């Protein structure tokens, strides 16, 4: 077992939120056509609120802190936030489009000891990347930021969200990452918008495109192993929990709302009204999420894919039931192995999204 796996197990046993994803803003200087956010500011946490929140996270034992958005660097106090997070000894990962990373910013991120910067790149071709971001010249500026970060010795990963119009460019982005000395990660997941609008799901890969991705040896290495029929489901899988959301990980919005995951919009509390650790330990919603085991999953508990399915409880929640199947993940399991899932055999089809909650800003705290 790796040291990271041991740490996760220990955090799970102790009930410690080892990792937190904090969106410091939903505002952005790009307008990516697949983005699930609305880019408005309904009353973001102030610098002081975030500093206090970071102290609470440190006291709760949080170690891995992802600072993201929106575009986090549009906040004038973003570096102040990162500096304070590093002062509290968090391992900080920054997710950004790098448009605002000039020479000084790159140098400062290095000096602050940011462990990793993840940067969204949709294509190696300007006409595709800029069309998705809706900002002319954005690829050129983003890659300028990438190079500056690399020149200052930062660890950079290019995150390549795949949609219908850029799926064919993944090899180009992968080669680009190799050329600049960056890592590469790919994600074919498109989620509904936070206001419930599902129109962005039209951008999801077609089945034949998803198949090409899930059988691409450049991405997966041993395709035969990755696409092998699922092994039988054992007691360990049935007694196991679906993912780290709500167990060792949670998400916090710019308004202080706490959720199990960025893809799991189940409101569990708000740090403007409660202490973070009280929400983490005592929220009925977190307790509900934590109680779910493989054997409790509707339909999925009888599915032979259960042990190695990418089933996302958040996507299932957005489809109406956090213990039900996620049709997008059913599709991935089927396309990967050629074996239908229990959810598919039960008649669940993609884009049956319903019951999505809006994320509302919190009211001002009572004084």
């Amino acid at each position, binding site marked *: 077992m790796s*040291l*990271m796996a*041991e*740490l996760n197990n*220990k*955090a799970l*046993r*102790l009930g*410690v939120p*080892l990792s937190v994803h904090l969106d410091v803003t939903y505002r952005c200087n790009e307008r990516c056509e697949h983005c699930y956010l609305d880019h408005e500011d309904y009353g973001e946490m102030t610098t002081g609120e975030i500093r206090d929140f970071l102290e609470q996270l*440190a006291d709760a*034992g*949080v*170690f891995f802190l992802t600072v993201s958005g929106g575009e986090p660097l549009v906040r004038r106090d973003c*570096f102040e936030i990162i*500096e304070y997070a*590093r*002062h509290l*000894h*968090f*391992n*900080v990962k920054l997710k950004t489009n790098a448009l605002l990373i000039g020479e*000084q*910013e790159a*140098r*400062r991120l*290095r*000096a*602050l*000891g*940011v*462990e*990793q910067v993840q940067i969204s790149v949709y294509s190696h071709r300007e006409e595709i990347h800029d069309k998705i971001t809706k900002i002319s010249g954005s690829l050129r500026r983003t890659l300028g930021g990438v190079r500056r970060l690399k020149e200052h*010795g930062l*660890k950079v990963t290019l995150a390549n969200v795949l949609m219908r119009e850029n799926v064919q460019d993944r090899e180009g982005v992968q080669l680009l990452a190799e050329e600049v000395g960056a890592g590469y990660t790919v994600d074919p997941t498109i989620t509904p918008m936070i206001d419930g609008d599902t129109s962005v799901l039209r951008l999801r890969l077609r089945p034949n495109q998803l198949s090409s991705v899930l059988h691409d040896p450049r991405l997966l290495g041993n395709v035969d192993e990755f696409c092998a029929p699922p092994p039988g489901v054992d007691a360990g899988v049935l007694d196991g929990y679906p993912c780290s959301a709500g167990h060792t990980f949670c998400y916090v919005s710019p308004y202080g709302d706490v959720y199990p995951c960025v893809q799991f919009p189940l409101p569990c509390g708000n740090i403007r009204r409660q202490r973070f650790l009280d929400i983490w330990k005592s929220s009925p919603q977190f307790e509900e999420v934590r109680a779910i085991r493989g054997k409790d999953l509707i339909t999925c508990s009888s599915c032979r894919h259960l042990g190695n399915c990418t089933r996302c409880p958040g996507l299932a929640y957005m489809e109406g039931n956090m213990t039900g199947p996620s049709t997008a993940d059913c599709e991935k399991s089927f396309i990967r192995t050629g074996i239908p899932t229990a959810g598919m055999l039960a008649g669940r089809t993609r884009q049956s999204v319903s019951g999505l909650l809006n994320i509302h800003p919190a009211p001002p705290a009572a004084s």
Partner: protein
Amino acid sequence: MNEKFIAPGDGLAYRALGGETIIMSATDSTLFSLDEVGSLIWQGADGRTPLTEIVARICDHYDVTHEEARRDAEEFIAELAGRGLLVVSGQAILDTRTRVSGAL
């Protein structure tokens, strides 16, 4: 014996977790875990606490002679310093905060 002072190295993230301490270096993303004794030493790595006092804390917590504790602590500190996790000085290391705050 000359006194020593220790402080965390540059660019480190660290946190206590159930009696242990987890440390990650931003330079190479290497993850380390310190056991309870190592964590006791790490807690004293504030740049101001003399190693003699840190060793005394170990002796307070564990059934070990001062000489053994000092020798083991010295070895441990040398190993961590060799990995860039600790800075060792003959004088107090007064400003540890600026180690993570480069000026823009």
